[in-house]
């Protein structure tokens, strides 16, 4: 009896073991093309954008609008790092992979054991990279593929770690922090390549996106945002804007002299991929310097949406949203890929909520511009985007002279520009629910005064050239809104005012619940249809991370990093004042430092076991 029982046990154990090995093997091979399949298993989160289309939508539906009110903190994990925590962890099988700001620690946490540390990787980095990072030492997350975890460190080292052991498999240097190039964005694995971008728009870098071989880290291609055609990886005859070839020297013609060499166009946002069209999408950042007078011309291709072939890097189409930027409206925010009917016809769309305050809808196959509407009524720097296809200025914003820092000139303070340089929305990604057809967008509701002036370039030193002061948009004291947006009509459906900018990435779920975090530190759950608040919980610090959800042992969890910092930690820590509101209002706006303090913590939520 004992013996047969033992035998049975062994058989069962062997069966279980082999099942686990199959599962592990599947996970191991989930690099390259398999990620397309792996992303559809909602139990896991295999990429920083949740899925390639950047919808940030999960089909998990145990947590619903009816029961989310009972959500509880299941377990928490301190990262041991104090600075701003952006991004979100990955979950693959029984393991969660978590990153931190500088010094960029990576933890593998055991989900079978309340987050026990399976391994920890801490790179050795020269601390001199810290001051060349604009706006805090954030990192937006890890990528996974081919059994490896990819980290783009602050010092631009791209390292591939064995997902099982945390041991480096290969490591290469992608940039030069000595001239202000740093790593903050999350890499993305597409097929057999790891895509990596660069930060440093405030240090006069020549921005680029690069693809490295997933197996050994060799560079496959590198596409610059500005410069000669050979740097840009464009085909002057085939790469188009608004359906027309961009022609030769499309970037060089729009810069004076050699300014493009320090012309910016950093690529620190999120990347999307459409496997059917075989195109990747991303946006480029501000032209350098912030003083527009020092760089006459359109400054192409800063502030531009790029669609590129991931195999060759060659651009298929481009669209420059903010030619000759005068306000630091980086175009790096995520490109959300959705298929929605317009006039009865299903269109393959790209939806993008830009820093400049316009929500853009384009055909992602051709780059045709379909909609460009303000997603915050406060936006005033442009009256509209010219949507007349026969107009020579089609697709260009109609800039209001009063708010044009170029028009007003150097050493003149342009007052009351909305949005502020933070943008109506920054990198914090929006979500889309195919169930409601709506986009859920975390926004800033902040305006500014902007005074450009002459600035001189020194490699590795800040290269800014403007003074700005920021304050809440007129007519209220709320500095943020969480909105639901109809991208086909270009209209706000509902809007929830928040005291501070909403700097946390949103998550939509099949359970009819949308999640986001606030700078005071609340995780909030709202009804996807109505925006009604269903649940909130105060985490240990302000949230600038992105909400994610996964399933483990048949149970749905929601997780978010808290740890205030980033631009929000600079602009809002001391509170904002309105220089035009008179003495009475000075100090009338809340200081974030009265609500929250530093500290990185992951909080994981679940419904109570019944």
């Amino acid at each position, binding site marked *: 009896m004992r013996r047969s029982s033992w035998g049975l046990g062994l058989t069962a154990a062997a069966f279980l073991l082999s099942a686990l090995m199959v599962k592990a093997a599947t996970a191991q091979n989930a690099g390259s093309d398999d990620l397309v399949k792996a992303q559809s298993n909602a139990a896991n989160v295999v990429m920083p954008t949740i899925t390639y289309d950047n919808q940030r939508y999960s089909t998990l539906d145990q947590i619903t609008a009816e029961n989310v009110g009972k959500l509880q903190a299941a377990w928490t994990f301190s990262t*041991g790092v*104090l*600075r*701003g925590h952006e991004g979100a962890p990955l979950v693959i099988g029984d393991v969660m992979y978590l990153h931190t700001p*500088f*010094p960029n620690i990576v933890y593998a946490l055991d989900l079978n054991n309340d987050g026990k540390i399976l391994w920890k990787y801490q790179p050795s980095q020269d*601390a*001199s990279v*810290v*001051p*060349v990072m*604009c*706006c*805090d*030492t954030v990192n937006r997350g890890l990528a996974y593929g081919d059994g490896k975890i990819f980290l783009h460190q602050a010092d631009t080292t791209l390292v591939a770690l064995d997902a099982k052991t945390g041991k480096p498999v290969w490591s290469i240097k992608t940039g030069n922090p000595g001239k202000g190039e740093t790593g903050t964005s999350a890499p993305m694995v597409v097929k057999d390549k790891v895509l990596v971008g660069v930060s440093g728009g*405030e240090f006069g870098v020549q921005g680029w996106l690069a693809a490295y071989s997933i197996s050994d880290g060799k560079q496959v291609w590198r596409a610059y945002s500005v410069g000669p055609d050979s740097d840009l990886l464009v085909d002057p005859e085939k790469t188009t804007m608004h359906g027309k070839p961009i022609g030769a020297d499309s970037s060089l013609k729009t810069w004076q002299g050699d300014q493009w060499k320090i012309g910016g166009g950093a690529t620190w946002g999120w990347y999307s991929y459409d496997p059917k069209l075989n195109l990747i999408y991303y946006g480029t950042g501000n032209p350098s310097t912030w003083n527009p007078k020092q760089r006459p011309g359109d400054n192409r291709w800063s502030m531009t949406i790029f669609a590129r072939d991931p195999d060759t890097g060659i651009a298929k189409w481009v669209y420059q949203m903010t030619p000759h930027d005068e306000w630091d409206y980086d175009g790096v925010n995520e490109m959300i890929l959705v298929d929605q009917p317009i006039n009865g016809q299903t269109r393959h769309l790209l939806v993008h909520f830009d820093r400049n305050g316009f929500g853009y809808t384009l055909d992602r196959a051709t780059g045709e511009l379909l909609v460009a509407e303000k997603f915050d009524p406060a936006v005033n720097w442009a009256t509209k985007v010219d949507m007349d296809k026969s107009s020579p200025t089609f697709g260009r914003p109609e800039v209001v002279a009063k708010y044009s820092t170029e028009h007003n000139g150097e050493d003149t*303070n342009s007052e009351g520009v909305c949005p502020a340089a933070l943008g109506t929305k920054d990198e914090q990604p929006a979500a889309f629910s195919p169930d409601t057809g709506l986009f859920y967008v975390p926004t800033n509701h902040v305006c500014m*005064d902007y*005074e450009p*002036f*002459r*600035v*001189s370039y*020194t490699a*590795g*030193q*800040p*290269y*800014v*050239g*403007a*003074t*700005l*002061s*920021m304050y809440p948009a007129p007519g209220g004291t709320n500095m943020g809104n969480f909105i639901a947006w109809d991208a086909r009509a270009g209209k706000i459906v509902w809007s929830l005012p928040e005291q501070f900018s909403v700097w946390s990435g949103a998550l939509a779920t099949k359970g009819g619940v949308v999640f986001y975090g606030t700078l005071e530190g609340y995780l909030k759950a709202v009804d996807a249809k109505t925006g009604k608040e269903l649940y909130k919980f105060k985490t240990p610090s302000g949230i600038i991370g992105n909400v994610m959800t996964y399933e483990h042992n048949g149970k749905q969890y929601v997780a978010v990093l808290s740890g*205030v*910092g980033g631009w929000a*930690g*600079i*602009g809002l*820590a*001391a509170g*904002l*004042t309105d*220089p035009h509101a008179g003495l009475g209002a*000075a*100090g009338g706006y809340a200081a974030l*430092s009265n609500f929250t303090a*530093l500290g990185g913590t992951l909080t994981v939520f679940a419904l109570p076991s019944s």
Partner: protein
Amino acid sequence: MNRTLCAAAVLAAGLCLSAGLCLSAGLAYAIDDASGDPTAVKSVDGKWFDKDGHPTFKIEEDGTVDWYTYVGFTRYSANCLRCHGPDGLGSSYGPALADSLKRLDYVRFTATVAAGRQNVSASQDLVMPSLGNNKNVMCYIGAIYTYLRARADGAVGRGRPEKHAPKPAAFTEAEDKCMG
């Protein structure tokens, strides 16, 4: 241009020799200002100095600030704000310089800006870069100091000073020479 910056460094070192005197005198007069009594006693081409010869602010009864305090605000906001927060009030990681200047005198302030500073421990990675060869900072270091001194002493409030004295011709000349 390096020569100009070198000259600036020599000037700072020269002031360092008299720093002890200034500091001890300062402590007797104004505990809120490590450089001592900020009262402006002398003006050269619109630039004001205290009795010890340190740059200082001059604010008229109607709130008009001197040109250098104003320029200090703009250059602080362009070059320092991203770490030290708006109006010298600090960020989630950079110290509030409006407080720091209560402990840092002019000489130590200038030396810190030029050389940088590191405070790296198990829990913090606070690194200030060396800005000694950054013209956008060093060509205006006196003005930035003057503005922050006014903030430390509570003489200037938050935000952009509403009214300021006109730009002195000497400023434009010195700026062109320094910025190149």
